[in-house]
């Protein structure tokens, strides 16, 4: 494919603006840009064709089966996009007076109310722009909480070895040291290891439940007790809320803070990497630390308030990825009381069904009932045939399917982490199962073919080593 710069012809342009209707003004020479500005010079038709070509080489949720573990690639309803595009939302300046944005504020309050009910929390901020941003926000809340009590020795955050990489990275940004604890034989938090890890320096525990192996931490009440008794707080990484929404509420199981990934559980699209939205909910005793501004209500009028002495400050400008919150709100209103748990059950049913259809060939890393996802290990297959998890993933590409997440969680060798989601049909799962089984056969009979895969895609396997060693990170005009 040509780069947009390679489609450029000097002198071409799109005619967008009328001539300026006031006298021109010129900056002083020393304030002016000296360097040439090399942007593409193209007509609208050329731009349209360019992006149509780029789109054709992009794999969207509707391009095919997309069971990317931990990412919850469910269908993104169209109505939600239309709602976010309404001028009454999209054309609103963030600094308009409160009486002219009552609808925006009411939407934020409503989203807060519904998501608090779903998570069992008391308050929620929508400022965090993504899950990791939510984690960071939650950890700063924990920091501030301990400090406010004059407890300055709590410097450690405990995370299980199955945790997402963002957990320890967020802990570092919040000035904590990470203590990683090993999972037990069953893939769950090892209570003895946790007991040994907690102490006077424990600030909190970050936990994903169900965890990244797709297993529900059934000892959650005991876990919460251990952490709370040691004086720490419990943080819920909401990446995997989808299979338990409407079934189990984090707040009822002892969690003090949660973040949600609206772009996972609540159906907002991923945009090729973002924007997402990572609201953070907390129990009432932490509310005074939440970021500002916060939406308040008095006599039926909504307004922003920044007047909180103990606030941690702000996590970004304005109020978060507002339009993303609207999409999630529309989704929750659509599913409602019955639809939320039904979606959860569909996700769990799909995952267990697919796992059982594959477990005679591919080894399940932690057998038993899974929630939204299950993790296979291609290690035995690799020993037997030389075909790795990566090779299987690349083989799936030739079959028009997006591979599962590979090589995560880190405690499973040759991991294939499969999350079918609630919006996948039995029919498409059956088709996927057929392909997974065929690839297994292929691995046994013709492993070389899988080492070579993919062959049907626009490009073949890439030289990632050279890309990192001699980085070319921008177009070279010369």
């Amino acid at each position, binding site marked *: 494919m040509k780069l947009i710069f390679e489609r450029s012809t000097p002198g071409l342009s799109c005619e967008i603006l009328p001539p300026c209707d006031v006298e021109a003004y010129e900056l002083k020479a020393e304030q002016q840009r000296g360097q040439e500005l090399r942007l593409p010079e193209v007509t609208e038709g050329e*731009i349209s064709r360019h992006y149509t070509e*780029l789109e054709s080489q992009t794999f969207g949720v509707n391009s095919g089966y997309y069971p990317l573990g931990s990412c919850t690639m469910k269908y993104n309803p169209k109505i939600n996009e239309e709602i976010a595009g309404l001028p009454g939302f999209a054309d609103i300046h963030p600094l308009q007076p409160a009486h002219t944005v009552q609808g925006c504020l009411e939407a934020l309050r409503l989203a807060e109310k519904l998501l608090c009910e779903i998570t069992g929390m008391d308050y929620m901020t929508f400022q965090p722009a993504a899950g990791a*941003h939510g984690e960071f926000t939650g950890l700063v809340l924990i920091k501030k909480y301990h400090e406010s009590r004059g407890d300055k020795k709590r410097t450690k955050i405990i995370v299980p070895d199955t945790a997402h990489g963002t957990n320890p990275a967020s802990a570092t940004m919040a000035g904590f040291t990470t203590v990683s604890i090993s999972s037990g034989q069953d893939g769950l938090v090892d209570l003895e290891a946790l007991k040994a890890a907690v102490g006077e320096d424990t600030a909190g525990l970050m936990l994903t439940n169900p965890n990244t192996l797709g297993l529900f931490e059934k000892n959650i009440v005991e876990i919460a007790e251990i952490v709370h008794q040691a004086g720490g707080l419990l943080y819920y990484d909401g990446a995997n809320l989808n299979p338990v929404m409407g079934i189990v509420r984090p707040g009822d199981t002892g969690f003090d803070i949660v973040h949600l990934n609206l772009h996972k559980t609540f159906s907002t699209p991923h945009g090729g990497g973002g924007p997402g939205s990572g609201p953070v909910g907390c129990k009432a005793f932490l509310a005074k630390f939440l970021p500002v501004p916060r939406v308040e209500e008095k006599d039926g009028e909504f307004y922003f308030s920044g007047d909180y002495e103990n606030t941690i*400050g702000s996590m970004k400008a304005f109020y978060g990825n507002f339009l993303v919150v*609207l999409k999630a709100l529309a989704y929750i209103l659509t599913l409602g009381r019955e639809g939320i748990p039904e979606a959860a059950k569909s996700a769990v049913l799909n995952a267990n069904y697919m796992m059982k259809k594959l477990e005679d060939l591919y080894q399940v890393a932690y057998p038993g009932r899974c929630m939204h996802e299950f993790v296979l290990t291609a290690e035995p297959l690799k020993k037997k045939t030389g075909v790795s998890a990566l090779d299987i993933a690349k083989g799936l590409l030739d079959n028009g399917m997006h591979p599962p997440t590979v090589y995560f969680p880190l405690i499973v060798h040759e991991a294939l982490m499969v999350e079918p989601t609630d*919006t996948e049909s039995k029919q*498409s799962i059956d088709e996927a199962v057929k392909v997974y089984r065929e690839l297994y056969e292929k691995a046994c009979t013709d492993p070389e073919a899988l080492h070579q895969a993919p062959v049907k895609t626009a490009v073949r396997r890439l030289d990632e080593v050279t890309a990192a060693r001699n980085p070319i*990170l921008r177009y070279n005009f010369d």
Partner: protein
Amino acid sequence: MGSYIPNSKAEQQKMLDFLGLASLDDLYNEIPDKVKLKGGLNIPAGKSELEVRRQMEALAGKNKVFRTIFRGAGAYRHYIPAIVKAVASKERFVTAYTPYQPEISQGVLQSIFEFQTMICELTGMDTANASVYDGATACAEAITMCVDRKRDEVFVSATLHPDYLRTVKTYCYAAGRKLVVVPEKDGVTDLAFLKENLNEKSAVFLMQQPNFYGIIEDAEACFKVAREAGAKSVMCINPIFAAIGKTPRECGADIAVGEGQPLGISLSFGGPYLGFMACVQELTRRLPGRIVGQTKDIEGKRAFVLTLQAREQHIRREKASSNICSNQALCALTAACYMSTMGPTGLKEVANQCLAKAHYAAKHISSLPGYELVFDAEFFHEFVTRCPVDVNKLMAKLEEEGILGGYPLEGPYEGCILWCFTEMNTKEEIDRLVAILKEGIQE
């Protein structure tokens, strides 16, 4: 009730039969009863699409869409060409995940590579990343790039957008970093203070261009002082201004960041927006977030891939340069499409029209008694005036005419107004504004 589950009850039962389970509830029989929610969620029953649309449209109807906007302060109304909206709503761009599988993601990857190139062109820098959340977090992340064991003190100008400053403060608090806010003097960074206070512990100095008050600061002088003290320099720049104004690179910055919202992204009540980050070559491996690089496939075909991942959280965990995972990729694609549509001439024209209209407006507003310019300094498309009447009453009067007036300042300049003018404002609109202000004085 709306539902997106594609299996009938009969199909679900078949699947349950295969699993040896009687009902969907049995899927959860390993979860202790004591932690299960009793009695279901206390939220309204699900609704049909039409009902949801009506409810959300009713909410949208409670907001006022202003026909004319003279307010910026970090969110700018520019014209968004139709092609930009069309491209940004293409289904695959909207719904794809982060391009972990490059063989089927060349479209998204290439769009990011093009975006990185354009941000480098705009800022004069060598390397850009695939975006961060917004301008405020871009500032905070840039600071993190500059801090090390020897130098961990952070200097930020008070003329930075107040939300950005508050965000930077929170990030510094979290990491336990000392933050020095360099005072504002006559609307610009107090250079003498900076000179006196930078020391061998100082890691970085960050300022905004044009600053929160719209003023084009002498960034070169500030960065020279920072460099002499051994500190890095960060410029948070308005990308429209960058088309005609001296680039961060030309001013001597090591890192350029900014809010990309003016590049084709709607006001959206504050988000999603687009944080961009670019830097000089030496700092490339300290950049946070995704970076796309060019490489070849095994047949020698040019291709693009996420690269330098050894910086990132999924590899480095607690030692990562940042925790960022999701970014604002679709907004980056939107901005790249906007820059392609405007082209070099068009983007400069946007900037020049902003500049011309703001100066036309400033001339006429400031000639009204009581509306004098507060600062005697060059500005881009925003400037501050005094206000001889009650600011709230003035705003209410403008609102009646469908006009969102300038932003009433708080803090040291309370009672003053920060006005903003872009290519969207016609001469007629500006003249009307001046007439209304004039009437207000006479009343």
